[in-house]
């Protein structure tokens, strides 16, 4: 028996999310008293793989094969499924990311394994296997009882503390059985560079309709730069085209859980709160003292976001210097 965790790499490198996943896998493995196996697909250097053992991986299983260079959901499902079978894993963990959401449901069917998605804590009990997760877009929690011998979980991003747990570094190569030709053909990839990804950001600076227009976004960008933060927006802002859809946080947009979330000129509609209520600390700036955002916020300023922002920029500049 084992806990198997799939750690995705980005151009051969891991990031905080990968180590959160291994820390989480290790916490569950301790409850079950079984080893942690980290699965890496694609080309990753030894010194990078070694980092996984620092967070508790007893073994790093690597798959390097020309057919896994781009994501094809069927091929990746087959490879992970084979690793699970070989290692006799009883718990399989993926990130609740674009990739994890694409693969975990397929794995669940392939392995006849019950699936619990977007979890953010270790199981309440392992026998029976019961795990708590948010439902109704954060308005409530439920306890999911996973009834099958093998369980598949996806871990919400930025929701589990990194725990260093150095283990001896062991790697093994897995050569998957003959893979079919990938159905998915990637025609082009368009990546933003240099910006902090919203899903990875520990601090997020966000603006709403109260910013009054796209020409007023400079201080938000400036504050984000000072704090090494990601930028986000509310739905009306992306619908108006002031900001790209990829920045929309809320029920139908991105669900994020940064340590610190700034809401400038966002009233806090229930749909918006659904996307940001897992933030550890929320700061709201709004002219309307009755705005619902103040019910969700930890700290609030009643005032015009456009007047408060420049002052905050200089206050944070002072703090950083």
């Amino acid at each position, binding site marked *: 028996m084992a806990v198997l965790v799939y750690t995705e790499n980005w151009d051969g490198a891991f990031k905080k999310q990968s180590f959160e996943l291994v820390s989480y896998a290790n916490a569950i493995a301790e409850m079950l008293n079984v080893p942690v196996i980290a699965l890496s697909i694609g080309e990753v250097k030894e010194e990078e793989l070694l980092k996984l053992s620092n967070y508790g991986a007893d073994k790093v299983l690597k798959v390097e094969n020309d057919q896994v260079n781009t994501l094809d959901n069927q091929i990746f499902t087959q490879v992970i499924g084979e690793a699970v079978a070989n290692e006799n894993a009883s718990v399989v963990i993926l990130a609740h990311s674009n990739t994890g*959401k694409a693969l975990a449901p*397929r794995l669940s069917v392939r392995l006849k394994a019950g*699936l619990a998605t977007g979890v953010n804590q270790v199981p309440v009990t392992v026998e029976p296997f019961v795990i708590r997760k948010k*439902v109704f877009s954060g308005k409530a929690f*439920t306890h999911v009882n*996973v*009834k099958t011998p093998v369980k598949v979980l996806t871990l919400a991003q930025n929701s589990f503390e990194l725990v260093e747990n150095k283990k001896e570094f062991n790697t093994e190569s897995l050569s998957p059985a003959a893979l079919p030709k990938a159905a998915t053909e990637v*025609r082009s*990839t*368009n990546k933003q560079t240099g910006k902090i990804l919203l899903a990875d950001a520990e601090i997020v600076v966000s603006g709403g309709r109260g910013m009054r227009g796209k020409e007023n976004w400079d201080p938000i960008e400036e504050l984000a730069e000072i704090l090494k933060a990601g930028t986000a927006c509310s739905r009306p802002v992306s619908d108006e085209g002031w900001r790209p859809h990829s920045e929309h946080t809320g029920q139908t947009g991105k669900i994020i859980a940064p340590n610190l979330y700034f809401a400038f000129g966002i009233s806090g509609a229930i749909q918006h709160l659904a996307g940001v209520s897992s933030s550890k600390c929320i700061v709201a700036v709004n002219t309307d003292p009755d705005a619902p955002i103040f019910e969700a916020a930890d700290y609030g300023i009643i005032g015009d976001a456009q007047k408060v922002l420049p002052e905050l920029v200089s206050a944070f500049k002072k703090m950083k210097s």
Partner: protein
Amino acid sequence: MKILVCVGNVPDTTTKVRFAEKNTKFDTNGVQWVINPWDELALTRALELKEDSSNPVVHVTVATVGRAGAEPTMRKALAIGADDAIRIDTDPEDSSFVAYQLAEVIKNEDYQLVLCGIESSDYNGAAVGGMLSEYLDLPSVSAVTGMTFEGADIILSREIDGGIEEVSLPAPFVAVVQKGIAKEPRIPAMRGIMMARKKPLKVVEVAEAETLTNMTEFEMPKPKPPCKMIEAENVAELVDLLQNEAKVL
């Protein structure tokens, strides 16, 4: 080409969530039911593709797993413009059960493209689309934010970390779509509502299937301590609190 759009019947987002039977069941009293927002965007895009006569799409079907109570939602999907509807007559149990029911219906038909919203706003499973594709042994693409035709080829945009990838793949396949796939969901017009009454809504018997998970209890989040207010003239205090009280900087 025929497109199938899977739609879920979910409580309206502004619903006050309550539970019954000692917090083991969702209390449906007084709940307004709507089409799951992501599925509504999927349906909107499917209809846009059909209406553009340069595309090969000729027919859009919607399917759901639910009891008769889901029919108003299906009628709304028909009013928006779907050609016909299928309702699999059973309670939607877990994601795997729902995906299996849909797969059983789809496998005997010739849909070239199956669209699912990436998650439902009630249980947020983000699972049915992927599961369905595995049951059908079809390729799938997830986090799809755009879909167009290039002749007979379907080109999809999918979101990747920090960007967008354009991919293509041969039909049939399952596309799991998210925000961006269509600008805004359509609102049914009076003519659509009238026509929807006459469109076919087929009721299908449930197929035998097991569930892999069940929800044993629900709880509400703990109330949050009140927001600490800071004077607009005193932003230095906020910086200090974030640094020394909340310790998030």
